[in-house]
């Protein structure tokens, strides 16, 4: 017993005063569309179709990059022959819709060579980050104060996201100091923290958990699979896909898996304490 107390005193507090702002060797890919020729190498290299290309007419191509589906595998960076894809070291990425996590650019295609020339960044669909944040605030934050009770639901994950969610409770990140607490029942929860892909076999349980959560409720989708189905795809016989295929999602935290600080950041965005201030649209625009 004495040993235990001494040990605790000697250890002191391990909690990091500011868990944010730590950069990673690899956050998400950033495309410099002005150097891109729409050659399609990155599209073929991407295992989750996070980068995909369409050619609506023979003279026009559209290339888009979605962080919702990115598993941070770095294959695109290596595949690009024109070094148009670089690495962002920021990991605290978070948004209020799938569209806000994706960026598209259009290209004029030379019919002879098939090479594309960058024309413009396409405007994104849906509300902007600021509008979506205002909507969430209007719906939720009048009722929720400075605390968030969270029920975590694994709706099909590989358990990688669970490892990092669990890490947010360790003494280093210590999410409880922000007023965030994991609760045992959805009936005690303000927010559901859902990892995916939502499987066919978890769909009913996920819906029931949502129904058991009192209003107003926030749904936070975690991980590439929770945001988009990830490597498992969407609409397969077993995997329905992203959480938004089943429930309305308020906050998306992409990554495979997102780091603890990114999850913490996303939860604080759901609380209205931090703003989802990062958008890939700002990068190339």
């Amino acid at each position: 017993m004495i040993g235990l107390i001494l040990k605790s005193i000697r250890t002191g507090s391990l909690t990091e005063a500011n868990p944010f702002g730590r950069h990673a060797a690899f956050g998400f890919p950033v495309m410099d569309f002005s150097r891109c020729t729409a050659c399609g190498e990155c599209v073929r290299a991407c295992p989750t179709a996070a980068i995909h290309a369409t050619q609506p007419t023979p003279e026009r191509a559209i290339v888009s990059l979605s962080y919702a589906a990115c598993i941070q595998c770095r294959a695109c960076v290596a595949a690009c022959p024109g070094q148009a894809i670089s690495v962002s070291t920021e990991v605290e990425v978070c948004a209020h819709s799938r569209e806000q996590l994706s960026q598209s650019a259009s290209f004029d295609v030379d019919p002879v060579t098939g090479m594309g020339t960058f024309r413009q960044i396409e405007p994104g669909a849906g509300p902007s980050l600021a509008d979506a944040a205002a909507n969430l605030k209007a719906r939720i934050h009048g009722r929720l104060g400075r605390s968030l009770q969270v029920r975590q639901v694994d709706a099909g994950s590989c358990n990688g996201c669970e490892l990092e969610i669990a890490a947010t409770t360790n003494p280093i990140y210590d999410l409880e100091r922000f007023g965030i607490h994991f609760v045992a029942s959805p009936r005690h929860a303000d927010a559901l923290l859902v990892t995916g892909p939502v499987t066919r076999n978890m769909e009913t349980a996920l819906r029931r958990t949502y129904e058991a959560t009192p209003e107003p409720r926030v749904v936070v989708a975690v991980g590439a699979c929770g945001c988009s189905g990830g490597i498992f795809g969407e609409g397969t016989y077993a995997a329905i896909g992203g959480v938004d295929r089943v429930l309305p999602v308020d906050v998306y935290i992409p990554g495979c898996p997102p780091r603890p600080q990114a999850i913490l950041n996303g939860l604080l965005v759901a609380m209205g304490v931090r703003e989802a201030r990062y958008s890939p649209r700002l990068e190339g625009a």
Partner: protein
Amino acid sequence: MTSNTASVSAALHVPEGAVRDHHPGELVLDTHADALPDLADRVSEQLEGRLLSLFATDDRARTGAFGVHQVWSLPRLQTLLRLSASIDPAAPSFPSIAQKHTAANWFEREVMDFFGVRPDGHPNPTRVALHDDWPGGARALRRDFPDDSQVPREPGDRHPFRPVTGEGVFQVPVGPVHAGIIEPGHFRFGVAGEPVLYLQVRLFYVHKGIEKRFERLPWRHGLFLAESISGDTAVGHALAYAHAIERLAKVAVPPRAQALRVILLELERIYNHTADIGALATDVAFTVPASRAQALREGLLRTNDRLFGTRLLRGTVAIGGVKCDLQPEDREALRSALRAFEKEFDSLIELLVDSGTFTDRVDGTGILTNQAARDLGIVGVAARASGIDADMRRDHPHDAYAGLPFKIPVEDGGDVRARLMVRAREVEQSLVILHQVLDRLPDTPCAASVPDHLPPGASALGWVEAWRGPCTHWVATDERGEVARVKVTDPSFLNWPGLVHAVPGNIVPDFPVINKSFNLSYSGNDR
């Protein structure tokens, strides 16, 4: 003919030449389905074989038949043996071996669920993988079943739980959504007051169609899928998949890559074991060591991040080698991080085993006897905690393990304490291994070149002793060299019946700590 093919042929009473050397350390015997039970008996009795996997293939387009395959570990001969038989699609069934070889129980039922090929004589031929609302005819792993099929939900209770009757006897349903941050599964306890009479588990809530998905993805992308079979075993499954592809394509992995793979696998082992030890403390509400273990684990993950740019070691394994390297200064940084870890880890274990309040909860709790573990075909940490001396790193050496001296800790208790101590001692051995490898990193490239196409109509096994136990992948290609079938066996699939066996007789409040002492993967099991 090698000595192994001769001795296996003799033990199985089959003509010389029937057992083929398929790849190094991997024998194949093509046989008739009716011969499977006798062969399984002889493999188990004469060759001390242990069943690692059992699965089906849909070869109707190529040979007009289904295939049923058993994969056995023959540790004495340091070889794996695959027994394969073809099944007539007109009468899709095969003789069950589950009555005698309990490890085959779930495997055979899974074959029935996903292929519609019945195990004749199975003692309990009910669904294991399919939930009640699956229509009977949806055979997801048949080749003619499109992966984007929308399977309708059918009402009905095809698979009721075993009832309990008697005064004061009742059922406790738990899950699939649990109280903690863990994966989904349903547990149904039959209890008389606090003591558990029996436990039934229903899994496959996180069935994501991974084996089908492998058939759809290009084989290079399959590596990323393998990393996501069970997120805590990213290196283990990625390596097992890479091994299978490398053996299939006859790619020789350079020695430096083999050594780095050992480093990655051991780093995965120690971070998981440390987390599990902390979680055991959490589950008995012993918060000081629980916090210490969480902090230690975070330190390990940050070391991973510094050295490899990834906390959970995703994206480190390549087909043909590794995608990372360790320069001399990185190696020194890792050595010093490990030395600091070791000191803290030793004091953590001391704190636990010296505390009566802790040992009271774990000693004699959740006992899986040696006999039960043998009968059920338990593997990995759980097997070694029940006195079974088995470890793929020694029995079927892969990567750079063949030349490394290390001990394999075995405990006899079979209880939570034994599973804790196996983990603690394995961490010690991992540190021994890591220091040895770090001191002698061969000077070669980190990856071999890999051909653009896989050979057509080929197959190979890949295996790894990951932190939880053996991960086995069997990969087969079609006539165009595309992936036709990947069978993934996570150690959890073999070990869930062990948990079911260890719980009865204990009290409900001890279930979390027993469950955590096995710490099985739902995702790896359900795939």
